[in-house]
């Protein structure tokens, strides 16, 4: 009886999800309510979690709760810490949730709401969650080894090196693109710049408090810090209204880029307790709070989605970024559906803290579903504003024109009605001088979030506060990714450099610290500068480059997972990882090819470089601008080389894996797994960790 009731309940969830998804897909005409998106996403996640993840856990991986995890075997209270599954879920989610699922779907909204939403749900359930879950499982079985170590042991030593280089490359491009998002959000905005600048002294204050006064008392320090940051958001308005202060905090793109580069260098070199760690605490609290508030706001306001399901830009002529729906919708969404970067977390801290193997399903698969839901909310927030406003904020001035009236005329000619007054009024109501030419996703998401929040609390009166709260929330945790990433990148550079010259690898040697920090900051700083001066807005070049590198890293992770499953003799179910691998290879290779060789200058790096060179040769460029134009040509060619090298690295890894797979399947090589020895657990079956156990 109970079983029948359960079956009926799950059938109802499945039918509701299918109905809502069908409604979203087939709806035409009147605007659609955002509730449909929430219902479709949640029902699909529930069904995927209940059916697909339990199938993977039971059939494919055969998770074993009698087997002790690394947290039990090595419990030292420092690295290996047995942690309650809910707490670990929170840790894991806070680690994987970055700016990607907010920015990616916002940019992908240029195709309309439908393709992005479908990929966020399907891609996460069949790709991203599977990758996170299986890599977590593989790492648990190997004493918490990293993706690079697993690639070296299970695929080949060359595979390990490629994985390490791929991680470094994605890190550089990731840091450049997220820094560009911040620059585009802060330029000509004294309010936002002041608020973000204030987070630095607040973090320093917290750092001193946590280091000298109350070591490790993170909760009280963070709550105090969050209160100060919220006050800084309000104080930003006074700065914006004062002519003298407003001038002092108004910067152009290049100045902001240089300041962020200097900040990244300082954060990598300064002691971690002083700036990096306290900023991260602030960011974790504000990020979690803002994400849950956005979910609550969407459920409370239930906004209408004004963007059509598909726009005319599915043909590849979009103003936000160039490229057709395949493959660029998937490349742009990136982290919200599949993120290669997550495999570093799944093979980093989490496997060293998990209590039981079966919890890998809840933490690995479940946390990624929640991340995908964040992406769906970002899509709703972006699509809840009139399409004309969305395109005005996200299009570069070289395409739509530099004034509100010119932008309105161009965008209206595309069929998305807009008048110049609307943009001027909107900018005034959110306390900005202009909202035009703010490609990068952050300002349009902030407008969407502010409209949802202000409909819940405060109305029009608080729109500007909510807008700057949203900008602060995005910029704060983007800068946290930036400083944490720069520091990790520095370690990677030192590790790789140490192989060539030993003293360079010494982590405490100041010249090596300064040089490696300068190398990593110089690398992402160069791409950032290139993005800031790019006439097409930078995002057009850098975001696809970031998406490609991220999805290539996911390919590395899935190739490693497939190799391990093959060695575990799970041939019958190998499609679970092989199918997303094949899909990602198809997407990334097509995107890489198009970004390098496409004949359209808006899309192809080489054709853009050639078109610019032709303009110089034809004498169409004034002599004063020729040097600048030549730099642009060089940058486009550099982007083509970077894309080509990344694609080549992955093709080599795939070839290495194919050789390995063939040797195993044909019986020429014995399938040797590098799992840690089996140890039976000593914990009682109901042991749930510290949080609700022995405290």
């Amino acid at each position, binding site marked *: 009886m109970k079983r029948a009731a359960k079956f009926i309940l799950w059938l109802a969830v499945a039918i509701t999800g299918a109905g809502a998804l069908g409604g979203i897909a087939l709806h035409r005409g009147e605007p659609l309510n955002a509730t449909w998106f929430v219902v479709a996403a949640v029902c699909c996640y529930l069904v995927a979690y209940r059916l697909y993840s339990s199938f993977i856990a039971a059939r494919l991986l055969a998770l074993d709760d009698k087997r002790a995890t690394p947290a039990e075997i090595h*419990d030292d209270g*420092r690295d290996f810490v047995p942690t309650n599954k809910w707490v670990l879920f929170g840790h894991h989610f806070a680690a994987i949730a970055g700016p990607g699922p907010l920015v990616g779907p916002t940019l992908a909204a240029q195709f309309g709401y439908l393709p992005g939403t479908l990929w966020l749900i399907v891609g996460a359930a069949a790709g991203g969650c599977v990758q996170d879950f299986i890599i977590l499982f593989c790492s648990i079985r190997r004493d918490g080894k990293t993706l690079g170590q697993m690639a070296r042991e299970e695929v080949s030593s060359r595979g390990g090196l490629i994985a390490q280089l791929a991680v470094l490359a994605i890190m550089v491009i990731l840091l450049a693109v997220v820094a560009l998002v911040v620059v585009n959000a802060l330029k000509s905005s004294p309010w936002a710049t002041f608020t973000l600048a204030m987070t630095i002294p607040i973090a320093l204050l917290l750092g001193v408090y946590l*280091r000298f006064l109350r070591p490790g008392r993170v909760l009280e320090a963070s709550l105090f810090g969050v209160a100060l940051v919220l006050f800084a958001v309000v104080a930003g308005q006074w700065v914006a209204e004062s002519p003298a202060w407003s001038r002092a905090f108004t910067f152009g793109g290049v100045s902001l880029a240089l300041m962020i580069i200097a900040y990244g260098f300082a954060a990598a070199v300064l002691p*971690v307790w002083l700036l990096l760690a306290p900023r991260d605490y602030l960011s974790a609290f504000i990020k979690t709070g803002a994400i849950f508030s956005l979910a609550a706001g969407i459920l409370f306001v239930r906004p209408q989605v004004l963007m059509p399901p598909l726009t005319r830009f599915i043909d590849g002529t979009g103003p936000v970024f160039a490229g057709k729906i395949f493959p660029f919708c998937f490349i742009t969404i990136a982290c919200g559906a599949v993120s290669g970067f997550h495999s*570093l977390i799944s093979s980093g801290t989490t496997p060293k803290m998990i209590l039981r193997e079966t919890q890998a399903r809840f933490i690995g698969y479940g946390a990624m579903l929640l991340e995908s839901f964040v992406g769906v909310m970002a899509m709703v927030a972006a699509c809840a504003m009139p399409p004309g406003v969305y395109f005005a904020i996200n299009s570069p001035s070289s395409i739509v024109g530099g004034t509100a009236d010119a932008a309105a005329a161009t965008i209206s000619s595309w069929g998305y009605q807009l008048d110049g007054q609307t943009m001027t009024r909107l900018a005034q109501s959110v306390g900005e001088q202009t909202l035009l030419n703010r490609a990068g996703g952050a300002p349009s998401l902030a407008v969407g979030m502010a409209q949802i929040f202000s409909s819940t609390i405060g109305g029009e009166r608080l729109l500007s506060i909510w807008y700057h709260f949203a900008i602060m929330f995005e910029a704060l945790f983007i800068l946290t*990714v930036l400083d944490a990433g720069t*520091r*990790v990148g520095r370690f990677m550079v030192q590790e790789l450099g140490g192989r060539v010259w030993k003293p360079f690898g010494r982590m405490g040697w100041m010249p090596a610290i300064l040089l490696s920090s300068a190398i990593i900051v110089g690398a992402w700083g160069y791409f950032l500068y290139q993005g800031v001066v790019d006439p097409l807005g930078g995002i057009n070049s850098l975001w696809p480059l970031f998406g490609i590198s991220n999805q290539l890293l996911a390919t590395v992770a899935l190739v490693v997972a497939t190799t391990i499953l093959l060695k575990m003799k799970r041939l019958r179910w190998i499609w679970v990882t092989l199918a997303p691998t094949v899909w990602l290879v198809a997407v990334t290779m097509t995107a890489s090819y198009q970004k390098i060789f496409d004949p359209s200058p808006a899309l192809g790096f080489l054709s853009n470089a050639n078109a610019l060179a032709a303009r110089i040769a034809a004498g169409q460029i004034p002599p004063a601008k020729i040097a600048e134009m030549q730099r642009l040509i060089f940058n486009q060619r550099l982007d083509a080389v970077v894309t080509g090298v990344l694609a080549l690295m992955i093709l080599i890894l795939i070839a290495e894996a194919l050789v390995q797979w063939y040797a195993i399947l044909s019986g020429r090589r014995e399938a040797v797994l590098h799992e840690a020895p089996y140890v039976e657990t000593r914990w009682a079956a109901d042991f749930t960790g510290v949080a*609700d156990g022995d405290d």
Partner: protein
Amino acid sequence: MQRAARIAIRSVRRFWSGLREWCGDSAYERYLRASGRQVADGRKLSAKEFYLEQINRRYSRPNRCC
């Protein structure tokens, strides 16, 4: 009614202890209870030493994603 109050109090306590553990507030208490490695001279780290060691280790590997 009493049962409901007990459940509510227990839930709040669990949430509070989970929150402290999530943000790292109770990491040192957890370390003192752990049976594993200590420092080379056989003593446990002080709260200050532990805090520094913990954050230095945490921020030397990928711990924040895109």
